[in-house]
């Protein structure tokens, strides 16, 4: 298995100022995350809103530079490279954003959107029509503007734009998040076809477990900027270990503590956990291998 992207202990904090700019508060979006994305292994990242999934996606593509930690692309460190030198990387690792209504320039026609993506790529033999046909759009769509397209069509255009120049990895940040159920299925089927056709590797970010389970081979569960559990689909579906993963799998039946106050110390899941122990208040558990690459960060399994 060839490794495409690897990050080591990356963290990103945001400073939040109050309206007067007097006091600052540190918000940890992602904390000490290490992961690697291997060729052909689709990775799913799950977690609730605000768990840092999108920041992780942006950091992996270096749209947001991490505060600490290193990012490697095929073994070369690229964390600190300036944007000019990242062009080769940007062509190989593409990102699709959640909201297709906002991710297309309202003044560019479909043709211009795709042509522009081609400019950064040196060796293009494909035409705009070819690219559009990959995503199931007829060539007449070339001259349309984003406001003339439906949500699903826009997302197809965004996918087409990501396909230019044969990328090896596509990071999809909730690609169906703002689409209706029917369109969602079409887009997912399309992504699945493209995967087989072009040998793409996806990093699929979603809060929808069913999609992740269907689409991915590996799953990472994120909570408040931490990876709390990581493993293959079977491992995590059949045997979820972390209390948060169990909660995600079965939100109705699982019991949890309804406590609003968050702790700034100890385990990140502390304030909602029913299994919490004395130890959990004092230190944060580390991600440890339970069995065959099934990693979990919880004191219950140590």
């Amino acid at each position, binding site marked *: 298995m060839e490794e495409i992207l690897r990050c080591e202990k990356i963290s990103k904090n945001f400073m939040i100022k109050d309206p007067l700019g007097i006091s600052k508060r540190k918000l940890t979006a992602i904390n000490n995350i290490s992961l690697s994305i291997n060729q052909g292994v689709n990775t799913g990242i799950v977690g609730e809103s605000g768990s840092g999934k999108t920041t992780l996606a*942006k950091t992996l*593509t270096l*749209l947001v530079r991490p505060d600490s930690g290193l990012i490697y692309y095929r073994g070369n460190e690229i964390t600190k490279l300036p*944007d*000019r030198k*990242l*062009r080769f*990387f*940007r*062509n190989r690792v*593409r*990102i699709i*954003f959640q*909201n297709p209504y*906002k*991710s*297309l*320039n*309202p*003044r560019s*026609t479909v043709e211009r959107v795709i042509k*522009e*993506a081609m*400019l*950064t790529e040196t060796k293009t033999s494909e035409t705009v029509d070819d690219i559009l046909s990959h995503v199931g759009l007829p060539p007449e769509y070339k001259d349309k*503007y984003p*406001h003339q397209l439906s949500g699903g069509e826009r997302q197809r255009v*965004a996918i087409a*734009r990501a396909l230019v120049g044969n990328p090896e990895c596509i990071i999809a940040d909730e690609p169906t998040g703002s689409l209706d159920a029917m369109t969602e299925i079409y887009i997912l089927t399309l992504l699945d076809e493209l995967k087989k056709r072009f040998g793409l590797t996806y990093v699929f970010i979603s809060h929808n477990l069913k999609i992740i389970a269907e689409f991915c081979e590996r799953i990472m569960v994120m909570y408040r900027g931490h990876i709390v559990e990581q493993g293959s689909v079977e491992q995590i579906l059949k045997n979820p270990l972390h209390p948060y993963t169990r909660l995600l799998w079965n939100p109705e039946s699982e019991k949890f503590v309804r406590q609003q106050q968050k702790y700034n110390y100890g385990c990140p899941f502390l304030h909602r956990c029913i299994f919490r122990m004395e130890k959990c208040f004092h230190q944060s558990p580390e991600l440890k291998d339970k069995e065959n690459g099934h990693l979990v960060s919880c004191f219950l399994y140590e």
Partner: protein
Amino acid sequence: MKTFILKRLLQLIPMLIGMSFISFMIIQSSPGDYFAQMKMNPEISPETIEMMKINFGLDKPVLVQYLLWLKNMCRMDFGISFAYHIPVTTLIKFRLKNTLCLAIFSLFLSWVIAVPLAVLAGYKEGTNIDRMLSIFAYLSISLPSFFVALLFVYFISKTGVLPLGGTRSIFDVNASAFLIFKDYMKHLLVPGLVLCFVNIGWLFRLMKNNFVEVFNTPYILAAWARGLPASSIIFKHTLRNALNPMFTILGMEIGSILNGAALTEIICGWPGMGSLILEAVLSHDLYLVMGALVISGFLLIIGNLIGDILLTIFDPRIRLT
């Protein structure tokens, strides 16, 4: 597009008629008239005043007066100014030329300065450059135009680097056209720079806000993610989208040329429409006021039309109907 322009130009007619009717009635119903002062003068006999009223057509009922005025206006005859005793058209023509020159000069200069600075400040948001430019913008917004004009006139009169007042210096009879033009521009510089300074501040603020707003949208992030060069992202993607609301502003600015510059014109002694309208209103110079109002209403509509047309050219989402 053609039908749209035609439609808008046709809309001009009822608007001008309505506007002129209301202003005509207001001026006529206000206490006193141009002859009030003459009546006080014992040297002018009441018969002379009656004669003048008949000559100017002021002896008829107000409504008839208005209709007569409207009829004449259709033939581009705006009547005769009471105070200057020359046709209003001649008077306005000279003054309008000056005001238009002033307005075009200051508008052009302020846009050319404000937009690039706003892009710079928007791109470097939060840095010292941004802060310095913002302070300058606040200064420009908060200082009233007459105050800036007074300061500037004081400064110029102390140093004497530029001529003050009027549009031209005294020349030889056979001075070349170029020399006259140069002299005209020099005279234009004082009110022009004042207006430009006052205009820059809020243009800068608006443009910077637009720029920052567009710069933070996901499609700009997507452009970065594709590895496009920064210049293409700033100018092609962000600037073009950020300019959209500015076209409406431009149209409004063209529309307010006449009244916007009045104070500055008066203080800098620039013989433009602003001072003319003020004098005319103060002395109840009916036909002059009406003529100036028609011109400014016309400019307002034309200005908005230009803004709308520019917007459709630059924004594919807007279609004119």
